[in-house]
């Protein structure tokens, strides 16, 4: 099949192209099962080497190639042509400064990530037998869903609350905090809840639900945010997620 691509472009380095503009490309003989990443590569490799994007693993794990494709945030390597049709529009994810073409400045996103103490904290002495800490599989499953996050920013940059206020930590940072808050081995849950109860924390979430369908890892993002809100309201982390309804 032939597919027409309309791509949002911008290059601060080239006079006349500093401002965003749209450019169309036509690809012949596209296989409907091609990933959008493959088609963008074909444009870059066969027609215009200046087309710029980030990508790495090409199968939805590294989180490099988040883009707005036909108006929806997706990983270019995890959506196929057959799911989109013969006219495909590609633009950078919203709410972050564009560096060039489909590449945005990710620093604000990682800044928010670093704010929520995204690391395991446990100050107790290590087990005397020199072995692992113990945890039941049921407790392990409480936070299984949020361990899947790949920091691609699809959720955060689909969130109208984030578009309205770039200081809002955003869904991805809350998902990362959730992974530790509900880990029975971790001891810094309270500090993270304090951080997230500040004005730019979870309460900026208006439960619009854009984040959940945007997640290429199918994390129930809005649900996770709800669990963090509930933990803040109840002032505890235990008993918020019931094992029998774990993700």
């Amino acid at each position, binding site marked *: 099949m032939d597919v027409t691509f309309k791509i949002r472009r911008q*290059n*601060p*380095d*080239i006079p006349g192209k500093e401002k965003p503009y749209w450019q169309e490309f036509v690809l012949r003989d596209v296989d409907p*099962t091609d*990933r959008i990443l493959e088609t963008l*590569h074909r444009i*870059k*490799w*066969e027609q*215009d*080497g*200046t087309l*710029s*994007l980030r*990508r*790495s*693993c*090409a*199968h*939805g*794990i*590294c*989180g*490099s190639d988040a883009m707005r494709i036909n108006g929806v945030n997706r990983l270019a390597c*995890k959506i*196929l042509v057959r799911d989109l049709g013969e006219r495909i529009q590609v633009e950078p994810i919203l709410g972050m400064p564009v*560096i*060039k073409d489909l*590449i945005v400045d*990710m620093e604000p996103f*990682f800044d928010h990530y*670093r704010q929520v103490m*995204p*690391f*395991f*904290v*446990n100050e107790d002495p*290590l087990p005397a037998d*020199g*072995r*692992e*800490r*113990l*945890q*039941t*599989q049921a407790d*392990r499953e409480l*936070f*299984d869903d949020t*361990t*899947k996050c*790949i*920091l691609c920013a699809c959720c955060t940059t689909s969130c109208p609350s984030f578009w309205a206020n770039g200081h809002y930590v955003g869904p991805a940072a809350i998902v990362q905090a959730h*992974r*530790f808050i509900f*880990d029975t*081995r*971790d001891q810094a849950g309270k500090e993270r809840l304090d951080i997230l109860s500040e004005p730019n924390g979870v309460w900026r979430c208006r439960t619009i639900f854009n984040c959940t369908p945007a997640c290429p890892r*199918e994390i129930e993002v809005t649900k996770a945010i709800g669990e963090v809100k509930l933990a803040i309201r109840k002032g505890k982390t235990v008993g918020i997620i019931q094992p029998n309804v774990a993700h």
Partner: protein
Amino acid sequence: MQVHKHDAIIIGAGGAGLMAALYASKGGADVAVVSKLYPTRSHTGTAQGGIGAALGNLDEDKPIYHTYDTVKGGDYLTDQAAAKILAENAVDAVIELEHMGLPFDRTSAKRISQRRFGGHTRNFGEELVRRACHAADRTGHMILQTLYQQCIKNEVSFFDEFQVVDMIVVDGVCAGVVAIELGSGEFHIFHGKASFFATGGWGRCWSVTSNAHSLTGDGAAIALRRGLPLEDMEFFQFHPTGIYRMGILITEGVRGEGGVLINSQGERFMERYAPSAKDLASRDVVSRAIYLETRAGRSIKDRGYVHLDVRPQTVNRYFAEEGRDRGDFIDAAAVERKLPDILDFCRTYLGVDPVKEPMPVQPTAHYAMGGIPTNVDAEVIIDAAGAIMPGAYAAGETACVSVHGANRLGTNSLVDLVVFGRRGGMKVAEYVKGADWKPLPANVGAEIHAEFDRIRGGSGSSRPGELRQLMQQTMMENVGVFRTEETLQQGIEDLAELRERFHKDLQIDDKSRVFNTDLMEAWELGCLIDLADVTARAALERKESRGAHSREDFKARDDENWMAHSLASMSGEMSDPHFELNFDLKVDLSLWEEEIAQGIPEDQQKFRPIERVY
């Protein structure tokens, strides 16, 4: 050029790099991690099935069994003392990962859960053992995330999206590296007492690969260009189960959970090739079997792929035939729980639901056993006598210790990067305390700057994308699973032509500075061509079949003549280099030698090189 000065420069932010950064930093060194990707984008994150360690949480297990499996899996090219360190350190390293918060799955006794994996056995090959510690089928993702989180906690400095393009060698000492800041296109000098290469593999030399687009062997190519040798480049692993045509990896964990390979006759053909281990024989054995089935006309629809079947009814039927306990039987829910990402890949990319249908798979270029030669402390070795280059370190896939020998066992890549990343990090911390700063040469970075100007100025008619595709095709056809003198000669000829076009006829569209991926991809292609060339030449020279290196004109392993590692080096003009190859570095057989010294009779020796049978 802006100059940054840190005790230790870690190049690459996958598992090996982050482990080294963490331990060097804990040891008191001022560490900078320089990576062309954001750390969480690194390829360690795609590792699926597990990390092997003889914890014995579910089955009786000992590090010496893991050592044995690693040596045997490597077809006896593995350095035995290094394999012992790998297996012993693996236990501590995995426990430490848990202490860092890694969310492993758990057993009913609340300990780290373990699963079966190809080639991992109990009691020197007696039966398969549950050794692979796992976090669902995203173990690598959890390792990468956990290590990055701990680096943030320890306030390690990161230079994200800085691509290292050259190393600085002063009087035989490594004094740092040159990098390009992708966002600005500017060159930066990283002046360090220690430079630690953890840049991963070069699977992108082949057309069907499980490897990320970014796996272009930068570190190994830089070392080669600076006159360092590369070890055992002829050994590149094809993983048997990549998704048909796409190459995306389907973890061996699928077979660890009972999945079986089926040909067009509906036959579980691995029973013929490996009567004991069957589908969980080592990867080189299974990949060859799929090719041989294809040649015999028994691939599905005659298209070069076979079926990987993990449907509960299939798995349970074979479990019953094998007399396995009914408690081992699986249902659809177990498949969903244990292999969520695999199901997601198949449903997304193939429209195939593995709970209901078998998956189409073919061998996919997966892992470099060879690379920058190092000792067991990640110090870079420059000759067969074991001399080191002070200040230069390497670990992970880009390095060759050699623990994987001629064929790596599943899970041992993750073991390798945590074990040798950790040991290397500790060694670096110790080294930088005593080492002096080497002054930088006056013209530092000038040479590589000129090389980039040359590439950027390319106004010929050969697009990097076209050259890359041609390289990948010839490597797949001529330097793949099976090789002969003719195919290897053809490969070398094709590569020479591509090299010529790369140097004389390159076309670069993007002349700008900011995030010039056209330029960077072209430079990476140059790295791939160098590594492909060395691979083909080493493969041509090794006239035997061993592990992943399978010569149809020399079908047998030949211990008398080839019990040695290859060391390949390159010199002269990059457009027409001169290659040298020697086999002076002998395989370390110290565990076998100990057995002989102890007077253990030959038939009871465990580490004597014998024919591999699975």
